[in-house]
């Protein structure tokens, strides 16, 4: 994982509204805690020290691999995201006065429509690529969304 990926992850966590994300990869462990307003990232690197030169988020590198290992394993590390394939307006329902495609707690599987992103009178139905349970809807209905913006968190467990 390079610095750019860590920066992207920090940005994602800040946007998603999730409070804490822990990630364990070969040789290092990363824990990001979002203490409002600005997220704070703690990078715990085992083999090599990581220096993050991001402007806003503060990253502290410490050679203490065991410090975080003690905390209980969080499911959030395993969450998958469904992202927007385009710029547009996010709709959770197929039309006004209709029920939402999915709600928190619903099971989704590949092919299940989860939302519409509308742009220039093009109605784009977004189907899930993954199987799991919706744990969080990250965007309000009828809000603008960007290309690649996370829309839903899905627990694959």
């Amino acid at each position, binding site marked *: 994982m390079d610095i750019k990926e860590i920066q992207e992850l920090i940005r994602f966590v800040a946007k998603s509204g999730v409070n804490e994300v822990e990630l364990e990869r070969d040789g290092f462990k990363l824990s990001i805690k979002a203490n409002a307003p600005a997220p704070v990232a703690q990078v715990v690197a085992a083999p090599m020290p990581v220096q993050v030169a991001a402007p806003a988020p503060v990253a502290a590198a410490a050679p203490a691999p065991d410090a975080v290992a003690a905390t209980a394993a969080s499911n959030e590390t395993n969450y998958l995201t*469904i*992202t927007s*394939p*385009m*710029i*547009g*307006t996010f709709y959770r329902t197929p*039309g*006004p006065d209709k029920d939402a495609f999915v709600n928190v707690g619903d099971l989704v599987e*590949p*092919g299940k*429509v989860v939302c519409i992103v*509308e*742009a*220039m*009178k*093009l*109605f*784009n*139905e*977004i*189907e*899930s*690529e993954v199987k799991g349970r919706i744990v969080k809807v990250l965007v309000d209905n009828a809000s603008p969304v960007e290309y690649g913006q996370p829309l839903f968190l899905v627990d694959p467990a």
Partner: protein
Amino acid sequence: MSLPNCNTKVLGQVYQYFKEIDSTQSILKNLPSEKLADGMLVRAGFQSQGRGQMGSSWAAKANENLTFSVYIEPSRWNLTSPWQLSMWVAVALCQTIQKLLPEAEVRIKWPNDILVHQEKVAGILVENAFRGEHWQNSIIGIGWNILQQNFDPQFSATSMFLAHATVTDPSACLVSFLEEWEKVPSAHLQTQYLDLLWMKDRWQSIRIEQEERMGCIRNVDENGRLLVEWEDGKVESYGMKELQFLR
């Protein structure tokens, strides 16, 4: 009602006509994938639940107008973005109507309505299915006024017949469109689209954020957003509903 003498390879070769159904879009959307074929066309004599944008209905009496939907697999037509598809259909429909009405001023009103002498004659609605970031298929819904003679004045609409009384056969109009559409290359459409764009390079009064300003349509970007130049020389891009064009 069959589709007579349609000399296309793909578009409309699978054809279903319903005297009355809720919406041609819904028929195609609810078909299982093994029953769908690229270019398949569903036409309704009358739609009880036909829709324009998010619920606003397209008013059409039985068999007066054309209401149909076409199923398209983007990968078979070298389409890379939904906006490219939208331009492709709009250019093809605009050119068809121009050929049927050689004397008329036919334009595309951004993003994809068709105007004859500044009044709406046809509307296009595109629904795309994405699996994650992968564009799977599209269903293109078209409402095209052919014989209707009475319109609610607030909609500023017209029909082919009103524009020229020799146009009297909806099925013939549909065949003309499908044949034209199949001939229009799907790539490099930007120039053609801009040439047909209503009010391009003409200063007009535009309402934006409750303010009226003089602006001029200059271009569209790759996502279909409209690029408007304002009197101060600044050019900015806009999506649907951000602008209202005043007459």
